[in-house]
C-alpha cells in the first residue's frame, strides 16, 4: 500500500488517518448500506440546516430602491416599504407590488415557514397536498385574481398539504427534521461527556467509589422520567433547552455501563502500569491511555443513543409534553394525523420522515459497529 512506503521514506509526516483508522474506514465503506445512508443523511441534514433558505415566508434577497436587503437575517419594519406593521409581511400583495416596482426579490423554493399560516388555502384546513388537485383553478381559487394572480406559483402551493392550522406540512417536516436531529445530537453529545466521565471515574478507581456510584445510579435510573417531565412542565416554561436539560439528567446513565467496563478491564493493562511507574498522573492516564479504549465502545453505542433521544423527543411531542406549542415538531405532526383521520397526508408525512431518519441512523450505526469490530480490524 502507498501509505506504508510513505512512512518509511518520510517518517516525520504521517497520513491523515492512522493505519488502523484507515482500516476502519475501509470496513465502514464495505457496508454499502451504511455508507450510502451516511451520505444521504449528511445531505438531508446539511440541507435542513439551511431550512430558512428552502422554506420561508420571507424572500432570500430583496433589491429595493437600489438597496440590497436580506430579510432572512434582518427584520425590516414595514415602514421601509410604506406600510405600518412592525414586521414586514412579504406575502401581502401591497408590499409585493411596492418591491416589484422599485426592484426585485428572490423567493425560496417554498414560500412558507413552519409557522406561516396560509391565508389562501384552497379548501378548509387541513387542506390536501397540491398534487391531489385536478386543476390550477381549484388551487388558486382563493387568490384575488385566481389563476392569473402573481402569487399563484409553485412556491405557494402546499405540496404535502397543510395541517389543521393551515401551516405547510413540507415546511414543518423540514424544520421538524432539523430540530429532531439537532436535539438528538446535542443530547447524545452531552450525555456522552457526562456518562463517559462518570463511567471513567468508576472504572478507574473501582472499590468504594465504584460501589457507591453504582448504587446511586441504580436509584437514579429508577426514577420515572415521564412523571418528572410532567412535574417540570408545570413549573418551568417548556422549551428546547429546558427539555434537553431534563432529559440529560437521565440519559447519561446509558453510557456508564460500557465505559466503566472498559476502564475496569484496561486499568490493569501493562502499559497503564508502565505509565504509573513513570509517575504519570491519574488524570493523564485516564485521558491518554484509557479513554481511547473506551471510545471504541462508546462510538459504537452512539448512533443507537442518538436514535433513542430522537424517539423520546417525538413521543413527548406526541403526548404534548415536548417542545412549546407552535414549534415545528414531528411528534406534533403525528398527533395531528391521529386527530384528523380524514387528512391522511399528515400522518403519512410524519411517519415517513421519522422512519427514514431513524432507519438511516440505524444503518449508519451498524456500519460504525462493523468499522470498530476488532475481529474485522485485526483479522
Amino acid at each position: 500500500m502507498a501509505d506504508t512506503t510513505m512512512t518509511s521514506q518520510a517518517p516525520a509526516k504521517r497520513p491523515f488517518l492512522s493505519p488502523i483508522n484507515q482500516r476502519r474506514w475501509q470496513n465502514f465503506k464495505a457496508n454499502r448500506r451504511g455508507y450510502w445512508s451516511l451520505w444521504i443523511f449528511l445531505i438531508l441534514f446539511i440541507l435542513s440546516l439551511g431550512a430558512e433558505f428552502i422554506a420561508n415566508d420571507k424572500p432570500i434577497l430583496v433589491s429595493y430602491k437600489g438597496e440590497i436587503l436580506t430579510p432572512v437575517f434582518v427584520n425590516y419594519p414595514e415602514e421601509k416599504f410604506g406600510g405600518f406593521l412592525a414586521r414586514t409581511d412579504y406575502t401581502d400583495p401591497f408590499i409585493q407590488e411596492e418591491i416589484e416596482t422599485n426592484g426585485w426579490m428572490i423567493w425560496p423554493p417554498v414560500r412558507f415557514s413552519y409557522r406561516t399560516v396560509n391565508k389562501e388555502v384552497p379548501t378548509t384546513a387541513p387542506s390536501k397536498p397540491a398534487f391531489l388537485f385536478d386543476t390550477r383553478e381549484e388551487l388558486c381559487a382563493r387568490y384575488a385574481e385566481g389563476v392569473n394572480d402573481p402569487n399563484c406559483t409553485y412556491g405557494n402551493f402546499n405540496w404535502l398539504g397543510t395541517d389543521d392550522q393551515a401551516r405547510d406540512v413540507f415546511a414543518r417536516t423540514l424544520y421538524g427534521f432539523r430540530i429532531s436531529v439537532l436535539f438528538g445530537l446535542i443530547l447524545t453529545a452531552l450525555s456522552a461527556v457526562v456518562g463517559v466521565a462518570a463511567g471513567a471515574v468508576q472504572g478507574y478507581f473501582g472499590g468504594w467509589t465504584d460501589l457507591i456510584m453504582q448504587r446511586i445510579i441504580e436509584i437514579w435510573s429508577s426514577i420515572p422520567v415521564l412523571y418528572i417531565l410532567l412535574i417540570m412542565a408545570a413549573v418551568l416554561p417548556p422549551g428546547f433547552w429546558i427539555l434537553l436539560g431534563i432529559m440529560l439528567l437521565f440519559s447519561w446513565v446509558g453510557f456508564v455501563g460500557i465505559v466503566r467496563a472498559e476502564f475496569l478491564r484496561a486499568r490493569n493493562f501493562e502499559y497503564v502500569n508502565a505509565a504509573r511507574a513513570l509517575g504519570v498522573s491519574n488524570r493523564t492516564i485516564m485521558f491518554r491511555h484509557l479513554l481511547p479504549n473506551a471510545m471504541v465502545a462508546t462510538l459504537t453505542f452512539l448512533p443507537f443513543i442518538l436514535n433513542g433521544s430522537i424517539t423520546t423527543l417525538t413521543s413527548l411531542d406526541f403526548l404534548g409534553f415536548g417542545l412549546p406549542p407552535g414549534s415545528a415538531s414531528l411528534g406534533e405532526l403525528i398527533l395531528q394525523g391521529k386527530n384528523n383521520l380524514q387528512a391522511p397526508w399528515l400522518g403519512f408525512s410524519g411517519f415517513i420522515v421519522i422512519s427514514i431518519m431513524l432507519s438511516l441512523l440505524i444503518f449508519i450505526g451498524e456500519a460504525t459497529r462493523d468499522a470498530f469490530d476488532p475481529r474485522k480490524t485485526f483479522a
Partner: protein
Amino acid sequence: MSGAQNNNTSAAPLLSVRNLAVDFTQGGATTRAVDGVSFDIGARETVALVGESGSGKSVTANSILKLLQYPAASHPHGEIWFDGQDLMKAPDAALRRVRGNDVTMIFQEPMTSLNPLHSIEKQIGEILRLHQTVPEAKVRSHIISLLEQVGIRDAEKRLPAYPHQMSGGQRQRVMIAMALANTPKLLIADEPTTALDVTVQAQILKLLDGLKSKFDMSMLFITHDLAIVRKIADRVCVMTNGKIVETGPTEDIFNNPQHEYTKHLLAAEPKGSPPKLDKSSPVVMQGDDIKVWFPIKQGFMRKTVDHVKAVDGIDVTVRAGQTLGIVGESGSGKTTLGLALSRLISSEGKITFNGADIGARSFRDMRPVRKDLQVVFQDPFGSLSPRMSIAEIIAEGLEIHSPHLSRAERDQAVVTALQEVGLDPETRFRYPHEFSGGQRQRIAIARAMVLTPKFIMLDEPTSALDMSVQAQVVDLLRDLQKKHNLAYLFISHDLKVVRALANEVVVMRNGKVVEYGSAEQIFDAPKTDYTKALMAAAFDIEAAPEGVVAD
C-alpha cells in the same frame, strides 16, 4: 532425510507431510506462512519442530488436523498422509473421526484450553462418549485411571473439580489425559510447557516421555526451546520463514549443525557473565522486612479472616552497578516483591531509596522519585500503548520529570535513548505494532533509560522473547549497566538469563526467602533442596522428587 536409526521407519511412516503450503489471505493481501514443508513421523517416534515465533511451526501442526481458520487460511498445495488416508482431501466427517481419536493435540495455554464451566470429569468424558471407544458404564473408571496415569493424586476426589481449582501444571496434566483418552496413534504437542514453570515443565516432559512408550504412540513436539528438544526428540526439523531448513537425528543436529540458521539458534543461549560482586558499592535500594499481605474476606460484613502472604518479611539490598536476581516458581511472590519495592502496590516495611525512606510516601509524593526508579515489564506487547507513537511513548516520562525541556530538546533525548538501545531513531514516529517483540522490549528499555534512572526493576523482561532475541536483550542490559552504573532488580524464572546477569540471587518460595547469596554460591553450591530442584529443572530439565516443588 532419514530417521534410519529407528527400526520402525522401514515400514511406511505413520504421518507423512508432503510439500505442504499454507496461505493467509487478509484484506486482499496473501501471505505464505508455510512454504513447501515435508516431513515424516514413524511409529513410536518423537519428531520436534523447532523454530522461533512466526516461523510457521504451529501453523504446520494445526494444518495436520485442518484446525486453521478457513477460508482465511488455504492450502495451495500439499498432502498429509495419515494411516493411508490423505487428510487434505478427506471430507469433514472423516476428519472428525481422526481428530481427538487417532490424532490428538495438546495446546500451549492450559489456562484457556479447558472450559472453565465444566468439571474435568465432564470434559474428559465428552471425548470418550463422542468417539464411543469405552462403554458408558466404564467411562467413569476409565477417566480415573487416565487421571492416575497422568500423575494426578487422589484422582477420584478430583473428578468434580473445575479448572480454576487446579494449578497450571495440573491443568496441563488434565489436557494430556484428554489427549490420551482414546489412545491416539499420534500426539501433537504445541509448546505444551512454555506457559509452565521450569520445575513443572520438567515434570510434564518426564510424564510425556513415559506415556509415549506406555501408549505406544508417536509424538510431534513443537517448541522453541532447544534444551527440551535435546531431551525428548528422536529427530528434529528446524523451521524458519515457513520452510524446513534442516532435518536430522537429534544428536547430529546438535553436534554437527549444517545450516546457518541452526547454528544461529544453537548459539543463541544467553552468554557472558555478570559484573563482579562489589559489596562496597553504594546502596541504592534497600528493603527491610517487606510484607505484602492480601486480606481474605469472608461473610456478610467482609471480615478479614486470614491473609494471603504474597511477600512475607523479606530483606533485600541492591547496590549501584550490581544486579540482584530474584528467582522462584510462579506464585512465589517475586513480582509482588518487585512491585512493592518500586511502590506500585502498597506494602509494609521500610523501603529506603537513595537514602530516603519512600515506604510511606503517597503516589503524588513518589513522583519525583520515579525519575530514578524505573520499571521494565514482562510483556512487550502489552506494555506499550498501541495508540501512541514510539516518540510519544518514550517522551511521556520526560514531560513529567523534565517539563522545562523544549520540544527539540525532548526529541533529542528520545533520539539518544533509541540509539542507546540499538534502534534506528528514524523509526520513532511509528507505532508499536510495526515492531517485533525484541524491538518492543528495546523501546520499553529506552522509555526507562531516557530518564537516566539509578535503579531499574526488570520484571521478567526476556521471558516473552525468542531465545536469540533474549540473548541480545541480556547483552544490551549488561552494557547499559556498565555504562551508567545502574542498579538492577532482575526478576525471572529463567535461571539461564539470571546467571548471565545477576551477581547476587534471592531464591523465593511462597513469599519467603529460601536462599540469599552471591550468584556463584547459589548456582554452584545450592544449599536447599528447593534451589537444587530449580537448578536441575532449569539446566538439565530433570524433574525433582515429589513434594520438593509445586505440581
